[in-house]
C-alpha cells in the first residue's frame, strides 16, 4: 500500500512521549503485522464526563442545542476531560468537532434534534419532487458551526491534543436522515430509481466536504483522524451503513455497495464500522471493495454480549482484513486464548492508569 511510503511527521502531545512508536504500531496493524504487540486503545472511565451528561439530562431541547453550539463550552469540557492524563498504548487525545452522526445530511437539509450525548435529524424530504432542491450548503448553520469548532480547536490544541474532522455519513444513512428509516425501507420497493438518485445526491458532495476539512487540518500540521481516534498521515475515513442492518444482502448490493465504492475511493485508510450482526450480514460485499482496508466490529447489547460468541465471525474477518475489537477487560484472557493476535486492534474500557499498564503487559505476551 502506498500509505507506507507516505510522508510522516511527529506531533508533540503532553503525556504521550511515544507518539512515533504508537504510529508505527498503527501502520503495522494496517498491514496485518505486529511490531511488539497489537495496538490497544483505552477508553478511561471519566467521572467528570459522566457528571456533564447528567447536566444535560435536565434541559429542554433548545437549551441542549445551545450547549452543543457553544464552542467555548465544548472545548473547555473536552480539555477538562483530558487534563493531566497520560496516554498509554495507541490512545490519542483527539478533539473531533461533533454535532452528531446526521450532520452530513444536515449540511444539505433537515434540522438536528439534540439529545444528551448524540443527536438525530428530522426527515426533510417528504416528497420526491423536492429532491432537486436538496443541495450541499457549505454556508449552513451546521457547516459553519463545525468550521468554528475546528478553527477554535486548532488554536487551542498545540502540545495537548489532535484535532480531527467531524463524523461524516454520506451513504445510505444520509438518505435515511432525509427520508426516515421506515419510509426509506418502503422506498426501496416503491421507488428504486429515486433511491438511486438520492444516494447519488448524498455521495456527490462528500469529496468536497472531506477535502475542506482535510485541507484545514493538514495546513495546521495535523494528521487525518476522526472520532475513532486512529490517526494516519494520509486520508483516513470510517465508512459505515447502519441502515443496512434492516435490509437484505441483495438490496445492500444494489443500493449500498455502489455508494461505498465511491465513498472510499480517494482515501488511503478506510476502516469500515460494522455496527452489529445485522450489518455483518453484508461483510462479503463490504470486503469485496479493495479500498476497505480494515473493519471495526461492534457487538450489540442484550443477547449480543459477551464477545466470545463472535469469535468465529471475528476470525473470519481477521483472515481478510485487520479488525478492531471492543471488549470488556474481564473477557481479555479468554479472547487472547481463542485468537491469534495478527491484525487485531483492541479497545478496552479502563478505570486507572495502573490497569492500562498491566493490560499492555499482558497483551505484549499474546
Amino acid at each position: 500500500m502506498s500509505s507506507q511510503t507516505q510522508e510522516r511527521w511527529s506531533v508533540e502531545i503532553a503525556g504521550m512521549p511515544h507518539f512515533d512508536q504508537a504510529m508505527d504500531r498503527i501502520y503495522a496493524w494496517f498491514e496485518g503485522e505486529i511490531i511488539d504487540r497489537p495496538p490497544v486503545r483505552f477508553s478511561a472511565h471519566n467521572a467528570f464526563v459522566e457528571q456533564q451528561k447528567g447536566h444535560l439530562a435536565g434541559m429542554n431541547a433548545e437549551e441542549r442545542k445551545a450547549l452543543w453550539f457553544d464552542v467555548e463550552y465544548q472545548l473547555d469540557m473536552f480539555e477538562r476531560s483530558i487534563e493531566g492524563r497520560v496516554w498509554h498504548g495507541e490512545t490519542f487525545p483527539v478533539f473531533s468537532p461533533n454535532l452528531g452522526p446526521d450532520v452530513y445530511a444536515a449540511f444539505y437539509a433537515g434540522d438536528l434534534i439534540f439529545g444528551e450525548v448524540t443527536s438525530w435529524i428530522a426527515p426533510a424530504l417528504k416528497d420526491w419532487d423536492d429532491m432537486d432542491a436538496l443541495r450541499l450548503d457549505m454556508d449552513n448553520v451546521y457547516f459553519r458551526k463545525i468550521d468554528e469548532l475546528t478553527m477554535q480547536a486548532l488554536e487551542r490544541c498545540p502540545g495537548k491534543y489532535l484535532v480531527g474532522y467531524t463524523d461524516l455519513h454520506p451513504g445510505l444513512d444520509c438518505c435515511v436522515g432525509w427520508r426516515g428509516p421506515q419510509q426509506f425501507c418502503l422506498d426501496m420497493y416503491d421507488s428504486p430509481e429515486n433511491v438511486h438518485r438520492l444516494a447519488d445526491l448524498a455521495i456527490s458532495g462528500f469529496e468536497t466536504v472531506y477535502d475542506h476539512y482535510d485541507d484545514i487540518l493538514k495546513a495546521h500540521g495535523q494528521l487525518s483522524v476522526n472520532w475513532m481516534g486512529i490517526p494516519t498521515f494520509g486520508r483516513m475515513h470510517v465508512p459505515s451503513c447502519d441502515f443496512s442492518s434492516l435490509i437484505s444482502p441483495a438490496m445492500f448490493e444494489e443500493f449500498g455497495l455502489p455508494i461505498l465504492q465511491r465513498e472510499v475511493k480517494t482515501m488511503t485508510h478506510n476502516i469500515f464500522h460494522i455496527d452489529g450482526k445485522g450489518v455483518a450480514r453484508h461483510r462479503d460485499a463490504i470486503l469485496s471493495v479493495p479500498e476497505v482496508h480494515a473493519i471495526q466490529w461492534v457487538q450489540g447489547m442484550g443477547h449480543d454480549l459477551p464477545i466470545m460468541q463472535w469469535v468465529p465471525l471475528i476470525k473470519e474477518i481477521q483472515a481478510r482484513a485487520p479488525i478492531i475489537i471492543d471488549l470488556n477487560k474481564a473477557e481479555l484472557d479468554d479472547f487472547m486464548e481463542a485468537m491469534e493476535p495478527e491484525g487485531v486492534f483492541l479497545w478496552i474500557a479502563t478505570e486507572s492508569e495502573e490497569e492500562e499498564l498491566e493490560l499492555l503487559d499482558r497483551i505484549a505476551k499474546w
Partner: protein
Amino acid sequence: MEELLDGLYTAVLNGDASGAVENVTAALNAGAAPEAILQESMIPAMMEVGRLFELGEAFVPEMLIAARAMQSGLQILRPHLIAADVEPVGKVVLGTVSGDMHDIGKNLVGMMLEGAGYATVDLGVNVSPQAFVDAVEKEGDVDLVCMSALLTTTMPQMRATIDAFKHAEIYDDVKIMVGGAPVTPEFAEAIGAHGSADDAGQAVKVAQRLTGLAA
C-alpha cells in the same frame, strides 16, 4: 375460490397491495366467508412473512410491504368482518416506552399481531407509564400490553411502567410482553413482565400463549 385465496396469500406475502385488494374484492364477490378470507389466506401469509424474517430470509422492507398489503386488504374486508360478527381474538395495547423514539420494531410487532387476528391500540412512541395505564383503563377489555425499547437508557421505563400497573392495581388484569433489541428474557422476568420475544414472528407465538390461544 381456492385460487382467489391462494392469490391473496401470495399478494400479501409479496407485499402487493393492489393485488391484495383485488383478491379480497374478488373473493368477497365470489361469496367467500370474510372469516375464511382472513383465517385461511391473510393470516397464514403474515405468519409466513414472520417465519421468513425469523430465518433471515426476509428483512424489514419485506415485512413492511407485506404488512401494508395486509392493511390494504383489511380495509376492504373489515366492514364485512364486522357485519359477520367476527370478533378479534384479543385486544392489545402497544407502545414504545418513555424517552424512546424507535418504532419500526414495535410497528412490525403490531402489524403481525393484527395479522394474527388481534385488535391493536397503538399508543405510538415515547409513551409514559401513566399513558399506558390510562389506555388500559380506558379500553377496558385489554388482554395484552406490549412495550418496546431499543435503548439501554430507556429499558428501565419498562420496569417503571410495570410498577405503575401494580400501583394502579391493573397488573393482574393483563399480560405484559416486552421486546426490543437489548431486551433479554432474564430482564423481562426480573421486571415482572410475563413474556418477551426476539422478533415479530415469535412475538405472535408468545402473545398466543399469554392470551391462552396456544399452549
